């Protein structure tokens, strides 16, 4: 099982777009600017690309691994690390940690890029969001009849005149 976004990371045009493997910090910045990497990031964010897709991608990318030779898809592994850098999912962090732990000369650049991504990930704030409507006591809620543009009268949520709070409690 693989995903088209991830498949494109393994393609020859992408490899040509990345070009030479730069030092890790520079390569990370270079990869951040590529539209395909940003697309993969968004796809992970919204849930199109999931954990099983990443697993399948890694299997595919490391298929040509040979000891003593640089991995041809090393740029793709580094690109995925950059794409997953700010994703909140657990598998994103696991991918970065696993790649960063590798001490193989064949994927040394990808591992170093992953370490750069982890450093940046841990320096970012962890954001928690809470969304609530301000509660109004039921005895003080007044639902007004409002007139729509078509002239029909109905009761419902319309503009800001629907739920009003009366301080005097005269509702």
């Amino acid at each position, binding site marked *: 099982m693989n995903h088209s976004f991830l498949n494109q990371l393994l393609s020859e045009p992408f490899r040509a777009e990345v070009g030479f493997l730069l030092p890790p910090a520079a390569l990370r910045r270079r990869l*951040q600017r590529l539209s395909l990497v*940003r697309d993969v*990031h*968004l796809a992970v*964010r919204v849930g199109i690309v999931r954990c099983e897709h990443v697993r399948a991608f890694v299997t595919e990318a490391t298929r040509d691994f040979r000891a003593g030779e640089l991995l041809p898809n090393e740029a793709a592994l580094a690109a995925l690390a950059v794409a997953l850098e*700010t994703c909140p999912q657990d598998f994103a962090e696991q991918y970065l940690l696993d790649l960063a732990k590798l001490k193989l000369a064949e994927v040394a650049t990808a591992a170093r890029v992953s370490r750069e991504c982890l450093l940046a*990930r*841990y*320096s*970012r*704030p*962890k*954001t*928690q*969001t*809470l*969304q*609530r*409507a*301000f*509660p*109004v006591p039921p005895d003080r809620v007044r639902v007004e009849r409002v007139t729509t543009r078509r002239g029909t009268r109905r009761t419902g949520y319309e503009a*800001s005149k629907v*739920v*009003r*709070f*009366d*301080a005097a409690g005269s509702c």
Partner: protein
Amino acid sequence: MPTLEFFLVCRAVTRDLFTDEITLSGVLEDIVLEADGMAQLPSAVAVAAWNAEPKSDPTDLQVMLRITRPGETKGLTFPMNLAKGHNRYRAIFAISGIPLAEPGELLFEVLLNAEPCASHRVFVHPPGSAPPTPPFPDELPPI
């Protein structure tokens, strides 16, 4: 114990998906009641950020936003947990539909583990009164 970096209440927040940077727009300062003496604040977004000690043990923290409307002594609280994480914590509270019925001070307070950290005051003006305007150009001090 984390130290507070900033706390602000504004009308909207946008967050960059790629860089995780936030942009606060429309910082709340003054609200004028409508002619009928009431107003409803459509949305207020309170943003707070804390820096944690790099080597401190990551523990869960409880953050609370307390909103006290004009004329009230006991505010309404909105609790939230900050999960253990990295070096910085950021809490975003989006509260919609705050009803206002009298002029005075609308007070937003943020509490970390039940201890007050910071507050943001919004002045609610009576109907017909204009919020303070900046000075005219000729009154501005020379650069």
